[in-house]
C-alpha cells in the first residue's frame, strides 16, 4: 500500500513536471533570450495541438503528427516575427499587449475556422500496472519528452554556430553586432525555435487535453509561473523550476485534492520568488560566478 502510494505520487509528479516544462519551454526561450513576453504563447500551444490533431485525424501516425504540429507553429511564429514582433524588441510591456491582441485573434480565428470543438486525439500506449493499480504510460513519455526537448536545446545553444551567436547576442547585442553577428537574424531564428517548441508541446499534450480553441488559456498561467520562477538561465532554470513546483503540486493534489494542489502551486511560486528574488537559476548562477 505504501509502495503503491509512492508510485502514485511519482507518476503524478512526472506528469506535473512534464506538463509544466512543456508548457514553459517555448516561452522560456522567447522571454529569456529576447525579453519578449509572449502572451500568445498559450495560443501557440493550441495551434500545435490543432495541427497535430488535424494530421492525426488525416491518418498520420501520432509520432509524426507531433513534429508536424511543431513545424506548423514554427512557421506561424516566423511570419508573426517578421510582421509584428520585430518591431517590439526592447519594448517588454508593449510586446505583452501586442501578443495579447494576437492571442485574441488566434483563439477566435480558430473558433471561426474549426468550430467550438475538434475530435480529440486518443491517449496512446495504455496503462502500466503495479499491483491493483495502474497509471498511464504516456505520463512517463511526457516527462521524458520534456527532458529530451531541453537536452536538444542545450545541444543547439552549446554546439551550433547559431547557438553561440545567440548567447553572445543575449549577453551584449551591440558587441555581438560589431563582431559581425547578424542579430536581426538571430532574433528571428530564436523566435522560430521558441514557436516550434510551443508547437511540439501542444502536439505532445494533445492526447491529454480537449482540442478546443481556448485550450491555450489553461497553460499560459502555469507557463508564466514556471518561466519566472526559473530565472535567467533558460534550460537549467526551467528544469529546476518545473521540478520544485511539481514536487509541491503533486503530493498536495493527491492528499488534499486538485483545488489545494492548484493553490499550493501558486503559493510555492510566491514563496520561491520571495526567497530567491532572481529566480531559482539566478541563485545558482550567482553561486557559480
Amino acid at each position, binding site marked *: 500500500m505504501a509502495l503503491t502510494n509512492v508510485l502514485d505520487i511519482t507518476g503524478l509528479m512526472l506528469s506535473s513536471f512534464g506538463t509544466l516544462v512543456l508548457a514553459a519551454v517555448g516561452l522560456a526561450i522567447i522571454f529569456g533570450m529576447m525579453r519578449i513576453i509572449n502572451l500568445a504563447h498559450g495560443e501557440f500551444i493550441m495551434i500545435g495541438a490543432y495541427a497535430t490533431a488535424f494530421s492525426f485525424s488525416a491518418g498520420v501516425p501520432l509520432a509524426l503528427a507531433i513534429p508536424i504540429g511543431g513545424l506548423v507553429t514554427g512557421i506561424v511564429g516566423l511570419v508573426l516575427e517578421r510582421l509584428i514582433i520585430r*518591431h517590439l524588441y526592447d519594448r517588454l510591456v*508593449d510586446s505583452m499587449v*501586442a501578443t495579447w491582441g494576437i492571442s*485574441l*485573434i488566434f483563439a*477566435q480565428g480558430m473558433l471561426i475556422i474549426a468550430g467550438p470543438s475538434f475530435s480529440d486525439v486518443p491517449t496512446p500506449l495504455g496503462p502500466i500496472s503495479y499491483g491493483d493499480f495502474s497509471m498511464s504510460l504516456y505520463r512517463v513519455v511526457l516527462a521524458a519528452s520534456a527532458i529530451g526537448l531541453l537536452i536538444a536545446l542545450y545541444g543547439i545553444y552549446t554546439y551550433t554556430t547559431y547557438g553561440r551567436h545567440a548567447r553572445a547576442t543575449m549577453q551584449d547585442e551591440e558587441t555581438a553586432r560589431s563582431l559581425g553577428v547578424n542579430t536581426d537574424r538571430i532574433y528571428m531564428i530564436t523566435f522560430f525555435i521558441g514557436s516550434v517548441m510551443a508547437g511540439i508541446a501542444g502536439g505532445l499534450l494533445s492526447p491529454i487535453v480537449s482540442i478546443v480553441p481556448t485550450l491555450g488559456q489553461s497553460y499560459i498561467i502555469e507557463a508564466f509561473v514556471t518561466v519566472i520562477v526559473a530565472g535567467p538561465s533558460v534550460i537549467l532554470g526551467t528544469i529546476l523550476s518545473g521540478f520544485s513546483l511539481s514536487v509541491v503540486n503533486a503530493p498536495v493534489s493527491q492528499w488534499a485534492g486538485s483545488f489545494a494542489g492548484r*493553490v499550493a502551486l*501558486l503559493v510555492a511560486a510566491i514563496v520561491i*520568488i520571495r526567497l530567491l*528574488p532572481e529566480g531559482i537559476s539566478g541563485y545558482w548562477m550567482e553561486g557559480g560566478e
Partner: protein
Amino acid sequence: MSEKKPTLPGNEFLPSIVVDGLDRVFAPFNGPNTIGNSPIFWIAFLLVALVALAYPAVTTPFRVLNTTGYVVWIFLALSLTLIWGYTGIFSFGQTAFFGLGGYTFGVVAKNLVQVTGATNLALLAAVVLPAVFAVVVGYFMFYGRVSGVYVAIITLAVTLILELLFGRTAGPQYTIGAAELGGFNGMTNIPSLAFGIEPVLVELDPVPMYYFVVGLLIAGYLALRYVVNSNYGYVLIAVRENEARTEMFGYDIRKIKLQAFAIGGAMAGLSGALFASWNNFISPPVMGIVTAALPVIWVTVGGRQTILGAIFGALGLQFLDSELAAAGSEFSVVALGVILLGVILYFSDGVVPAIASRIEDRIGSSPDESVVLEESDA
C-alpha cells in the same frame, strides 16, 4: 508662489488676465510630470468637465448607466498608472485589490444596510481593507527585494489565489452576517451607494451615481496631478528611473514603493467598491487573469506614464469592447485584437502622449517657444 510654472506656448491667443488666472488656480497641478500644463489645456479641461456634467441630460439612461460603469473601472487603471507608470512597480494583480474592495463592500453593505440604511462605512472599509492587504503584500515583496517582472508574477499569483478561494465559497456555510458570498456564481443584491443615516438618507440612483463617480474622477485626477508634480512625485519617478541611484541619495526605496503600492491598493479597492455597488453584483472572475490583464492593456494603450492615458485608455477600450460585442459578429474579438496590435505598433508610447505632442507641435511651432519657457521660469 515660488513653484515652477513651465507653461506651454499658445498663451498668446488668450488675454493675459485669463492666462494669469488659470496659471494661478491650477499651479499646484502643473509640472513636467503630467501632460497639459497650459492655460489652453485647462480651458479644455473645464470644457470636458462641463460636457461630462451635461451628459445625462442629452443621452439615454442606458448610456448614463454604462458610462458610470466605465468611469468606475478608470480608478483601477489610475491605480496602476500611479504604481507602475510613475513608480515602476509592475503589478499584474491590481484586480486582487479591486476584488477585495468589491467583496468587502458587498459584505459590509449588506449587513449595514439593515441597520442604518446607508453604506458609508462599507465604502470606507472597502478602501481600507485592500490598502492594508496591499501593505502586507507590498511588505512581503519590497522588503524581500523582489522587483521587476517578479513583482508581476507575485501579484498575478495573489489575484489568482483570491479568485480560486472566492470561487470556492458556494453554499450557505459561507455566509458573513446577512451576506452570502455565493461562490463562482457571485454575490447578488449588493446595495447601491447610499449616504447619511436614517432617516436622512441619500440613495444614489443612476444619475446621482453618475455625478458621484464623475466628481470623484475629477477630484482623483487633480489629486494625482498634485502628487506626481510634488516633491514626492519626483521621488516616485526617481525610483522608477533608477532604484540604486535613488537609494544612494538616502531614500528608503522599499518604504516609498510600499507607500505607493498601498495608495494604489486603496484606489483599486475604491474602484471595486464602486463597481460592486453600481453593479449590485460581484463574482470571482473579476480577479481572474483576463480581468487582471485589462488595466495593463488600457494603461499601455493610453500611455503608461500619463494620468490622462489611463483615463482615455480605459474609457476608449471599454467603449470599443462594448460596441463590438453589441455588433454580435464572430469577428468582433478579432477586430479588437487587430486594433490593439495596430495601436501598439503605431504609437510606441501610447495614444495620449502621441496626440499631445502632435497638438503641441501644431500650436507651438513658433520659434519663440524657448523664450516663453524661460520667461515663465523667471
